[in-house]
């Protein structure tokens, strides 16, 4: 194909994997158009809509009490969920990659369940468990514990949905690293805790941070599962994504897009951090031959 394009004329041999200039240009144009219409424009629309009536309206949109409550709840959820799932992810990855035990494959499969089922089902499961007609519902109601249509429900649903991120990031990494270095540390007299802190953790830190970022991004942005359990109580159980939806359905476009723009900025910050981390990780750990 490269030869047919005529690029080789007068230049001698063409590398086997190079394309002619016309093919290249076509591919670039396709990619650029796609990028423009499906990635850049939608993001721009969010900001344009949010600022349509000026900065004051934008500010009003994100500073009204309900919006502030939604922001607070989203941040609270992330602050609770991310550390718990980080700990779980490290523990699960550690167990799965450094030890052999019965039911290990089952555990690996189970970790993926939140990824493979629809988030709506994730939310439904908890309604069926903790809701009034559910399994534990009557008992909870008798003890005056509110989970569904309350903040705990939002947090539990988010926990469920974001559970696999850290573990999924760490398991392949730790599998690749094997147990040699841990064994070496043990032979040198280190105890289990020292081995973990001084050998395992430094070896996985970039992957771990990446997993935490992904987990955080999803915790902030989760809609489906949270929508089922939250009950959309304005100012109480509305997270930012739910708040955006409520405002939009009320034809309050400016406020809706204003809150949405915050989500976009959070996501963007996550992506930038991720890129920085990836670059650092690549620089920090030159691959061994």
């Amino acid at each position, binding site marked *: 194909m490269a030869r047919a394009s005529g690029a080789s004329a007068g230049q001698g041999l063409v590398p086997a994997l190079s394309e002619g200039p016309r093919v290249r240009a076509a591919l670039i144009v396709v990619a650029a158009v796609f990028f423009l219409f499906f990635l850049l424009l939608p993001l721009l629309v969010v900001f344009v809509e949010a600022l349509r009536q000026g900065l004051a309206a934008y500010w009003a949109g994100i500073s009204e009490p309900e919006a502030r409550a939604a922001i607070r709840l989203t941040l609270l959820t992330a602050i609770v969920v991310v550390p718990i799932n980080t700990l779980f992810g490290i523990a699960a990855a550690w167990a799965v990659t450094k030890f052999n035990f019965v039911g290990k494959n089952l555990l690996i499969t189970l970790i993926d369940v939140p990824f493979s089922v629809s988030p709506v089902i994730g939310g439904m499961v908890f309604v069926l468990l903790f809701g009034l007609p559910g399994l534990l519902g009557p008992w909870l109601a008798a003890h005056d514990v509110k989970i569904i249509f309350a903040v705990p429900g939002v947090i539990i649903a988010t926990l469920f949905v974001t559970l696999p991120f850290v573990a999924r990031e760490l398991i392949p990494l730790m599998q690749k690293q094997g147990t040699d270095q841990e064994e070496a540390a043990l*032979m040198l*007299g280190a105890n289990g805790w020292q081995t973990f802190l001084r050998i395992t953790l430094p070896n996985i830190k970039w992957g771990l941070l990446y997993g935490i970022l992904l987990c955080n991004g999803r915790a902030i942005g989760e809609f489906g599962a949270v929508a089922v359990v939250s009950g959309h109580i304005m100012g109480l159980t509305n997270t930012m994504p739910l708040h955006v939806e409520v405002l939009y359905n009320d034809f309050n476009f400016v406020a809706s897009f204003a809150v949405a723009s915050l989500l976009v900025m959070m996501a963007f910050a996550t992506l930038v951090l991720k890129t920085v981390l990836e670059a650092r990780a690549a620089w920090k750990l030159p691959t061994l031959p």
Partner: protein
Amino acid sequence: MVKSLTKRFEDLIVLDRVNLQIHDKEFIGLLGPSGSGKTTLLRILAGLEVADDGVVEIAGRDSGTLSLEERRIGFVFQHYALFNHMTVFQNVAFGLQVKPRHARKSAAAITQRVRELLSLMQLKAFEDRFPAQLSGGQRQRVALARTLAIEPNVLLLDEPFGALDAKVRVELRRSLREIHDSTGLTTVFVTHDQAEALDLADRVAIMNRGIIEQVGTPLEVYDAPQSPFVFDFLGHTNAFDCIVRSGKAYVGEKELPLDKTIRDGPAVAFVRPHDVLLAPADGRQGETGTRLPGTALVRFISALGQRAVTELFYERRLIEAEITRESLQGLDLRVGSKCTISLRHLRVYPRREAEQQTRVAERAAVRPRKRRRFRDRLPTLR
């Protein structure tokens, strides 16, 4: 000291009632092909694996009851297992820094000890480098220094030279021997390279399929291999089928000298290529040895350096003979010419193939479909 050690992975028997006595300050090599169980034995000695049966005793005490501190075992891993995120200095200091507070030296003393070790291993210039910035030989020396830092009584090395190129290998062999001699360590190392084991060790234990076939000094095992496997594993081998009748071995009608009594039946005579002597086909007696009837056809000659390797057809089988260049010229041999063969230093073993076949079959019965996660990796496959 190892007593009746057995290890199974799933249903695969990796070590089968292994006994081995290791003396104080001894330098011992565990030699065997991959899959023979030598690395597993070493890992059990280290306490990294647990035997299903049997005990490891150190100075008369069951090592399972000893703390790591009391065992004082240093282990050098096949691929060194250096801590990639630490500098050379930090790697070597690790074992000193993780000691419990009451046993730990001061930071200054640790620094001094690490510097000593680094200069001993000629690594002084590299203390701030990371493992990824070192050559294979340097990494090996870091691994050794890191292990020596905890002042072990016993040093265990898993294929210590496996990942190095030939020249560095020989250099490091020498320096390992010097370290052993100067520190009074007991050293056990695993290798699949017979030259390395015979060159380096005081005694060699040759392992095959989970059992130790023979233990002895390098000369003992080389000169008096107790089994066909040992003979075959320690060097090139020619095998002749023969028959033992009333205490005498025969190839055709020709009687072979026997060094020990063997029960009657089919047997195999093993002889090294340099013990195959060639003489002109015209009947002139060349050198001493047991002359075989008939003549052989020269099929191939490879003359490299002082020695010439010839391949001969004899009785429908290939024989390898190693002779000097001079005698090659004296015999005027070339491809297609004929000569007679004499054998010396041959060893006759009862034909164990049949026996071994049943052993394989026995094992196959308990062996799972696939080999699981075998620890003996081929070190050359890098």
